[in-house]
């Protein structure tokens, strides 16, 4: 039996280490990783009050002295399969909007790893605990590619030729390494209050490259060095530290409450930005280099949690959290948001748990665009896209040996929203580079039917992302 479990773990690790990539949408926050406690992940990430999972100490430092066991170690793997589909509105001949034609579909897996440990000791009614963890907070990895094909008729079983390849590559995950301490006071067998403090450091290099590469087919269709490639790069480092204060109290055998407060943290973002478009014809290379040095703000977060342990033949725990995120700390255009988490754990048969959860997390994408004001001055316009991520989760556990448990948490979420086309169509208008009055019939095989204009917000992409995630953790507690 153990061999099967070992095989499962090894398989998970192999799968995890082989692949990486993730959503390209939020260039500010990347992709935020929620709780690393696999048990709580299966319960909708509602774990502000958590007296079992080792990684609960990273969600709320007060959980350390709340723990049922005195010592704990945990290693976790977090896998996410991201599917990104971008579509154009599709119209019938009566100009009747039918639906969306997907023009780009990317599917990748990404992985992150984390570890945590704690120890607590009681002196009479007073408990003291210490813990440490290392976990991903923001993941900036991305791997997006998009074919640009010409408009050759395809009714003769001939594929339209690829004329350019667009790509976005992102690397780097902002890891959080934290130390947590907790003080608890025992009021009774099933009642106590705990206060915790967490200090963490964050530091990592992030890079993001956006590129357009004309294919050899396109380059050979016109005079040499006519079609310019484009590369836009952000390389920067984010560093700084964050604090968290937490309280947790078990009121009686039935109820527990908890809260955390993360004050606004100002991290440093330093690095460089470059834009390069190759020379073409008589036009010189366009090269912009600049440095990045700005504050990177993590917003204030307040989270309240609640746990309920009723009498139930399928031994049951119900957790619910509400989180208030003050995004307005970052930019006035952001609205503060409320996120909701809830989950339940039932012991089905032979004490095997079945966990089920739901969460509704709101994202906001801040988009900066250039525009002209009434006096024809160039200004920056900010647009915020609010996108809700509803998520369902499920999970279970296997006791591998005494005190060693493998927890598995699965999640599925999707989001649907409008977004600007990331690579404007005007770039593929070869008239711009050749100086000819029409597009080349060698590149655009039916040039009379193509209008290469960059779409604006009047006709945006419809984006649909699907994420299937697995949170696997092995913990040893005693």
């Amino acid at each position, binding site marked *: 039996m153990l061999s099967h479990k070992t095989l499962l773990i090894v398989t998970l690790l192999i799968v995890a280490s082989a692949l990486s990539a993730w959503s390209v949408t939020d260039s500010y926050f990347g992709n935020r990783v929620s709780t690393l406690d696999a048990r709580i992940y299966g319960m909708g990430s509602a774990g502000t009050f958590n007296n079992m999972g080792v990684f609960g100490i990273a969600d709320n430092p007060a959980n350390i002295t709340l723990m049922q066991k005195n010592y704990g170690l945990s290693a976790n793997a977090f896998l996410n399969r991201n599917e990104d589909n971008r579509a154009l509105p599709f119209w019938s001949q009566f100009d009747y909007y039918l639906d969306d034609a997907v023009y780009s579909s990317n599917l990748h897996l990404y992985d992150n790893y984390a570890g945590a440990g704690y120890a607590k000791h009681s002196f009479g009614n007073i408990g003291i605990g210490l813990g440490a963890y290392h976990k991903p907070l923001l993941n900036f990895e991305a791997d997006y590619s998009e074919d640009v094909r010409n408009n050759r008729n395809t009714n003769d079983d001939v594929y339209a030729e690829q004329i350019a390849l667009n790509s976005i590559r992102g690397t780097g995950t902002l890891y959080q390494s934290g130390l947590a301490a907790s003080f608890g006071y025992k009021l009774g067998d099933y009642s106590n209050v705990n206060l915790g403090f967490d200090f963490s450091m964050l530091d990592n290099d992030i890079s993001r490259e956006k590129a357009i590469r004309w294919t050899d087919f396109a380059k050979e269709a016109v005079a040499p060095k006519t079609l310019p490639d484009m590369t836009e790069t952000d390389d920067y480092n984010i560093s700084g530290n964050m604090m968290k204060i937490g309280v947790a109290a078990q009121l009686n055998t039935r109820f527990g409450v908890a809260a955390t407060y993360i004050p606004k943290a100002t991290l440093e973002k330093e690095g460089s930005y470059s834009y390069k478009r190759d020379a073409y014809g008589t036009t010189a290379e366009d090269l912009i280099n600049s440095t990045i040095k700005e504050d990177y703000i993590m917003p204030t977060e307040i989270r309240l949690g609640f746990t309920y342990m009723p009498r139930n033949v399928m031994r049951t725990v119900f957790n619910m959290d509400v989180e208030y995120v003050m995004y307005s700390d970052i930019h006035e255009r952001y609205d503060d948001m409320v996120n909701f988490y*809830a989950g339940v754990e039932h012991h089905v048969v032979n004490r095997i748990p*079945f966990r089920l959860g739901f969460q509704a997390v709101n994202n906001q994408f801040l988009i900066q665009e250039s525009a002209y004001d009434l006096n024809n001055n160039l200004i920056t316009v900010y647009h915020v896209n609010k996108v809700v991520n509803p998520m369902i989760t499920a999970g279970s556990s296997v006791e591998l040996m005494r005190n060693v448990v493998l927890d598995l948490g699965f999640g599925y979420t999707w989001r*649907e929203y409008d977004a600007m086309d990331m690579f404007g169509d005007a770039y593929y208008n070869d008239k711009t580079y050749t100086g000819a009055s029409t597009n080349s019939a060698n590149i655009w095989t039916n040039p009379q039917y193509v209008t290469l204009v960059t779409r604006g917000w009047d006709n945006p992409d419809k984006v649909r992302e699907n994420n299937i995630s697995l949170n696997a953790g092995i913990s040893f507690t005693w």
Partner: protein
Amino acid sequence: MKKFLLLLLALVSLGLLAAKVDLNTATLSELKQLPITADQAKDIFEYREYTKIFTSIFDLREIPSIDQKTLLKIRPLVVVSLYQETDDVAIRRDEIKDLIERLDTNEGSMEGMADVWEDYLMTPQNLNRMHFDDFMSLPNVSGVDAVAVLKRIAQGDTIADTRDLRNSAGLSHYGYTNLRSYVYYQEPPVKNRLMWDAKLSYNTKYFEEGQYDMLREDFTRDYTTGTVPQRQDLSYWGYFGLDEIDPDISMKLRLRYGNNYKVGIMNNSSKGEDGLMTSNPKDFINDSKWFAGYENTNMPGLNNSRLKLYAGNYRVTYGEGLVMENTDFYSARKTGFGFSKRILGITPDLSKTQEFALKGGAMEYTHPLFGVSAFVSQDDKDALVYVNRDGTPVKRDEYGNDVYSEADGRQYYKEGNNKIYTYTDGTPVSADKNKVFNYVISSIRWDNDELMEAEDYLNKELTAAGAYAVPYINIAARKDVLREKIWGGHVQINPFIGTKLGMTTYTALYDNAHIVVPEFDEMLSTLLRTSGDQDKLRKAMNGEISTLYSTQTDSYSRDYRRVIGFDGQTVIGNTSIQGEYAELSVLGDDLKIGDDPKAYLMSANTQYENLYFLTLLRHYDVDFDNPYSNSFSEHERFDGTMFDGNVYSLTNSTIADLYLNGNQSQPEQGVYFETRYKFNNFFTVGRSYLDILERLTDHRRSVRFQSELEFRPLFQVSLRARYKNQVNRFDDMADRGVSKTNEYTLAARTFLSNRDFLELEYRYNTVYAPPYLSITNTAATGNNNGTAAQTLMIGDYIAANYTHNFSSSLKLQGSFLYWFGHGISHWDWEDMEIDFMGEKGSKAWIAITSRISQNLYMNLKFRNKTYQDKEIRIRRYNDPYDSSLLGDPIYLERVEHSENTIRFSLDYRF
């Protein structure tokens, strides 16, 4: 001495017993005194606290850390006392938990009625004091059942218990089984105390197909002459960014003390509307529904009378719903029998309905011999309003003129191109009433400012696109624009048991509006965007639109709508007969029968132990336009009019909400028969009906028939065959013929142990139909006509449905379904919602109900539905020589949608 020794022995035994540790009451420290480890003591304590109360000492073996040796060691030292639940509410809730779950699953279609029935389940009524209407308001209890019980009581008998009830002569099996859960006999099962129910639900639903089409309709289309702009932002869909997931969130809180004092509040925000976080407190309260009520069924000094007083939002239903039954939702074939019931009288209202909600005060006083109730309401209703180019409502004066304002404030009306500033008597032109087209239940209740900004944006493009019959949006929805005051009431006498005669009336006063509906001749130019569509849509059933009620016509100008009706019911033997007659006051005398638009309904239900037979006759005049009427009908109003499937033609596509969310019956007349017959334990003819009807606007005649045969060779196995047939005949339209629908369904069901359930179902449909009038042209040379496009469509689906109960705390339900419609749509009833399935696709859903504790329920459902959009075949006339088509039809297909839906709810009842 011997006696003393025995006494001593008994005392010693009691002492020894008393020294034993009771596993069901011991504290943790007491358990730690046993010769076991501290961890084992904790495990025992937590088993009792978190899993279950000990029923036997051998339950200890279910705890992993307690082995047989430990059990034997502590066995002499412990006892297990008998545990009995003493909380009467907990006991009652456990008794009725299955019924509550069933009501919860039907809540989506019941518009808050489930709440009322849940209250009756928790705090039942005293059977020996119930009135006839109390019985009639309970699900699946008939008038015959009510009379059977009431006659016994009237003879001085007192029904003592459930078994006694069963012995009532004339009470049907189904009446008895449903009635027994809603009543008590001597002592109520729950004493008066504070009870509350808090519910939160989150639902990421999608719009229905018709709503999608309406919201996505582009405002710059001029396909007859111009270019196709193809801009998403020129539709409401694109302008408001409706691609994004935007959940419906509702919160409900009800508190009551016994059945006497009740309060509640509910807020619901749907996709596209302001939610809790984005609306200000004033709007939040304005959009919420609330009530406070007092009920007393045991009035001091008044023999067997009952009083209800409600403030806030309440529901009112009388008779057969012809005069008054306030709801936003249309429900086909609502007979008022079986599970298709009405709750009569005044009830609190926390349903999601908004448009026909009543807000104010209501009272009801009933006695076995008579009843009286009255209500007043003032609420601002949403309406479709005629608007000027700047979005402001068009004003109307008392003489029926559209009145405009100059910048300096002077008002004028137009005669040709002349502006008239004064009336003939010299007084200045004056108008302060909005010109309203009709009430509207909008798919999205946008705020007026947002909507006007959107219209302004869309209007600019309309101008740019070319010549239209109406160059701007001239009719638009406005939130809370129609101030409606309602007063009404109902009086009833009950001369004999089971017999009642009642009269109902209401008057809706419009303080700030004239409701104006264009005459038939003006209708097309008012509602259609391009004159090119007028010829086509002249053929649609638009009589239903032009006959809507106006408060201002060529004949009169008034500021109210009044409906008066009479209803009655009697029970003769095992037959219950009931009916209602209603008139909308237009030109006739209020109290003279037959001089105004009318509607009537009469039904008779005969029941035997294993058979019932229902006959229902109804007639609704075309111009009987009563928005508060929700009686039996086969179709909703505006079915087949230009609002149905012709959104692209309308000056504003959202006018189609009148059809898409319409709540009123279609003007029709017909006779309906329904039966169910159980031959024996093996064979049952399930609910079967035949409806023969005529739509009164175009005299389309239809026959609809459905029957079901169930064969149950074993209790656990059921085989069902169902057949449905519908024929619609357009006798008076030369270019439309007959449509015929046949539907065959086979289902095999197994009822497994532990209430588990598995079903396989196959359905096959054929539809032979003429095309919609709107996509055909007149039968001129080179044009097609209806005959040429008669189509036979064949569709089918296969489904597997299952339910698995892990225990009484955890239930899993789900379904897989694959369908291929070929133009035919299917309807599927899921756990709580009805789903519409067009063309072809597949879907799977899973719903998990977790009963976390006796009081707390969590429900989580996930559904994926992947389907293709409609196939569109466009024949550009029937011209085989059309060089642009080369003889082929234009053919679009394979547009795929994938929809995920999550529904999450938490319900805490205490």
